[in-house]
């Protein structure tokens, strides 16, 4: 995955709080293969019958500004795939659900926590605006105004380098092997084999 440090694109507002993963991608699409692209399923039920849906009104937008607790609910990474495959690079919201934010960063999508995101969302209304995001300074510039968002160093590093965790961790295989041996010695029951008897549900 390629990293990025500056992004320029159009921002639109999705004026909702608690945008959950079932809204981002309804469960019925989750058996699809990623190769076919998940962008077509993004917000499928919210968009249907809503001619004015922000992402349809402003095609090609790549920055989404939304209300608090974005991405709450399921751990489905498909929610992030849907956003990424639809061309979204960053979501700006006052807060994010933990699992969603982790999944986003693992796929190059910035979850930018900005305390006054809802004010920005209201200001933008149904319009679109040009936005510039700089990961180095953790700033969002929109309509000539700069806003600093919260960006933990770990996330900045991962997003800018496009790091792959598996590679990073495989550099520590020796430490993992040593830990495994110690765990095996101290808690051998972790590897315990099954008894022949079957469990009861009581």
């Amino acid at each position, binding site marked *: 995955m390629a990293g990025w440090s500056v992004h320029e694109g159009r921002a639109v507002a999705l*004026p*909702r*709080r*608690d945008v*959950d993963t*079932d*809204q981002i991608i*309804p*469960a*019925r699409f989750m*058996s699809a293969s*990623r190769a076919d692209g998940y962008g077509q399923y993004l917000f499928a*039920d*919210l968009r249907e019958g809503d001619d004015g849906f922000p992402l349809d009104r402003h095609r090609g937008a790549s920055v989404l500004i939304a*209300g*608090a*607790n974005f991405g*709450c*609910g*399921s*751990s*489905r*990474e*498909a929610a*992030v795939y849907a956003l990424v495959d639809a061309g979204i690079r960053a979501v700006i919201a006052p807060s994010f*659900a*933990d*699992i969603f934010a*982790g*999944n986003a960063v*693992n796929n190059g999508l910035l979850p930018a926590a900005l305390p006054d995101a809802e004010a920005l969302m209201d200001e933008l209304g149904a319009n679109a605006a040009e936005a510039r995001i700089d990961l180095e300074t953790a700033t969002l510039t929109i309509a000539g105004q700069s806003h600093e968002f919260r960006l*933990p*160093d*770990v996330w900045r*590093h991962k997003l800018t380098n496009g790091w792959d*965790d*598996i590679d*990073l*961790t495989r550099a*520590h*295989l020796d*430490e*993992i092997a040593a*830990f495994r041996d110690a*765990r095996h010695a*101290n*808690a*051998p*029951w*972790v*590897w*315990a084999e*099954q*008894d022949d*008897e*079957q*469990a*009861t*549900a*009581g």
Partner: protein
Amino acid sequence: MSRTLLDKLWDAHEVRRDPDGTSLLWVDRHLVHEGSHHAFAKLAERGLDVAEPGLTFGVADHYAPTRRRDRIEDPAIAKMLERLETNTSRHGIRLFGLNDPRQGIVHVLGPEQGLTLPGLSINCGDSHTSTHGAFGALAFGIGATEVAHVLATQTVRAQKPKSMRILVKGALGAGVSAKDIALHWIAELGTSGATGHAVEYAGDAIEALSMEGRMTLCNLSIEGGARFGMVAPDDTTLAYVKGRPFAPKGAAWDRAVAAWRALPSDPDATFDKEVTIDAARIAPTVTWGTTPEQAAPITGTVPDPDALPGGKAEAARSALDYMGLTAGQPLQDVAIDQVFLGSCTNARIEDLRAAATILRGRRARVPGVVSPGSMLVRAAAEAEGLDRVFTEAGLEWVGAGCSMCVGMNGDIVAPGKRCASSTNRNFRGRQGKGARTHLMSPVMVAAAAVTGRLTDARELMEAKA
């Protein structure tokens, strides 16, 4: 220095910590399901093997048909189940597949089989992995990229969360259960009330809970934003675990118990955040909106959005619109179309027993489905005759799986229909496109079935007594 349960579990699994604060944690149990296909695909792309197939277990649950299992009509569903079989068998992973007599929802099956033990670290590509924390385990849900990482390395990268303790003091009233404790605190603190935190539940009301109740409570932690929910292991925990198929036996059991006894938070340990709840104040609780925090005591009314602060007002307005409810309407007047008793939150044997106490000798006014959490729960319920209580009441008794909690297997609530549900998410469209979900405990689901509207289960309990 005194340490919390979280500290002890974290320290026991930390392989290393990067300068930026990221921990690399060893994973004792990795549970995979049909939805893990993205992760297996990532592994295949890189030509990597599964590091510890012996610590990895597969379960068919999300897409598991609850009715006809011999002939799956939807090819997409059949493909999901097949892919799980292919991926697990290719990597030598034990699978509790569709036709295994132990099959069930991963968060029901794990504890039932003794795969879930105190002191373990447990990951699964599912947000309700917090359930397993009920045993004093470090359990949290992860995304597909992380699942691939665990498969390849048997470790997970994580930032240590802040600690939070929810103390529930006193005794719960009759007809009030762990589900109500959860809906109550989430209504008070909000769906992001515990974001960034690991919640430890403590207090006499928690100690009095069965393992089933503790699992329900820990399961719902994620709905309040907490990726982890935990209860310290005690005699109740040990009694549940002892003799389970994968639990240690003999000398290993004694050694394990000694280790587990040291897990509870030290008496003088401090938490980053602490909340105290008076158990006696908790009423049977139902949701009226489209997030679990939009909940109220069954004795109350649908709130007036105008009376709610700032952003919550708009969210409530839009939720009432979706739910087809009006401000001020008594919750007990809300008529329902159907009920669902199931899911990893409330489909264990104790949940079914509780619902049956209300339904025994009564008829349901609306249709409904009862899906036990596992096929072993199903068998146990049948041995007790609970299945007949449900079917004689007019409800459908089906197989085990996620079923109508998420609708992936085709069990859905039709558009606009209102369902009283023992599940964990009342999100828009969660149970099917346009479906309206009210979350509540199993006895409340049973009571709603009997009257055809949202009902205070305590009234039916009294009527019977």
